[in-house]
């Protein structure tokens, strides 16, 4: 086939209007020799379906492979040496920064918690102290009041007792005078009714009456 194609190429593109594209595509590297073919390429291409389907045109394989190798190798080197390490670095750095910041935040939070705890403890202690003081004061006042009340009550009791004693004495005294008053009254009454009576007789009569 290759020989035939070369023969066609030697025969020239005008010898067979249907096939020159095939020859053109099949003989790789011929392009440089015949740049005028590039112009005919397009029109022949449009009209012809006899040519090789471009993706299966093996004459372009070598060129594509070479270029793919060059470009992909370049891409690989660029990626593995420059781009990816750089992006990886950026991401790692950010991660480190985030981790550091988080640790710092955690540290601050712990400190805050400690401060809150110590404040709470101080507050509780102060409250307890205040409570104790209030309790003590209340107890002091209460005992004071109790003392005073006891004293006042004692005082009052003594005064009551004194008063009661004087009342009793007065009563006894008054009772003692009742007989005398009665005798005098009797003496006066009897004198009015039947003549004078001695004081002694009046007394005896009163005593006798009061006994009955």
């Amino acid at each position: 086939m290759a020989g035939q194609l070369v023969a066609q190429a030697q025969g020239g593109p005008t010898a067979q209007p249907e096939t020159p594209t095939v020859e053109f595509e099949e003989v790789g590297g011929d392009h440089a020799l015949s740049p005028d073919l590039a112009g005919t390429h397009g029109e022949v291409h449009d009209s012809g379906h006899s040519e090789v389907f471009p993706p299966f045109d093996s004459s372009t394989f070598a060129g594509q492979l070479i270029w793919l190798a060059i470009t992909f190798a370049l891409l690989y080197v660029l990626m593995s040496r420059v781009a990816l390490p750089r992006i990886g670095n950026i991401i790692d750095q950010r991660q480190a920064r985030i981790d550091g910041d988080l640790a710092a935040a955690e540290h601050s939070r712990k400190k805050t918690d400690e401060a809150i705890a110590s404040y709470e403890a101080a507050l509780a202690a102060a409250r307890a102290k205040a409570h104790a003081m209030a309790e003590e004061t209340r107890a002091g006042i209460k005992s004071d009041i109790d003392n005073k009340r006891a004293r006042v009550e004692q005082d009052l009791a003594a005064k009551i007792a004194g008063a009661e004693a004087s009342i009793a004495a007065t009563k006894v005294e008054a009772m003692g005078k009742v007989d005398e008053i009665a005798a005098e009254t009797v003496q006066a009454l009897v004198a009015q009714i039947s003549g004078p009576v001695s004081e002694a007789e009046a007394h005896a009569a009163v005593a006798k009456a009061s006994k009955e």
Partner: protein
Amino acid sequence: MADPNVVDPIHQFAIYDLVSFGEGGPALTNSALFMALTVAAIGGYLLWSTAPRSIVPGRAQVLSEMLYEFVANMVRGSAGKEGMKFFPFIFSLFMFVLVANLFGMVPYFFTVTSHIIVTFALAALVMAVVIGYGFFRHGPKFLKLFVPAGVPFPILFIVVPIEVISFLSRPVSLSVRLFGNMLAGHITLKVFAGFVVTLGSLGFFGVLGAILPLLMAVAITVLELMVSVVQAYVFAVLASMYINDAIHPSH
């Protein structure tokens, strides 16, 4: 299909020289140009966006970091911590396929990944890495990959050939999947776009009739953008899973 004289959906895949460097040398073709553009775009974007190395990233840097994290998680997930050694390789593969696919969606741009030789070369590269690293790391024990543990001896006569065939078909399926998706998508898109042009030139009713394929073309464009991303992802995931086989051959 629309009139082939008006629309040729195959034409977009043609490779032609842009600049020739003398006889026999690798001429700068449109394919080569877009491979170079792909690499330039990837490298340029990643380096440009990460140049400030800011702790609080801007939008451009966030995208770069997301791509990095995405591929890193993918490799770590399917190949483990040890697989991270191949992270630059998988990342390069993913980005190359992704950007090449997406470039293909730009009108008049050439789709590098629509050529079977390119996808096959990438798949073969993956398999070469798998086999090379497998033997380098495990020596002959790497062949345990084809001998599942705990299978009775007589059944091995059936299982081992199946394993070998499945291993050998990997590069084929890997490359044909990507190639087929890109090729078919672009042809479909071109055909529908061709309908629009052809019908549109047929007068009033033609223009009315062109609305439907126009909507289809828009829908397929969206679909193809998705396929571009998904295929890049699938390629990279499968590559990292195959590399996982090289790291842990006894499964």
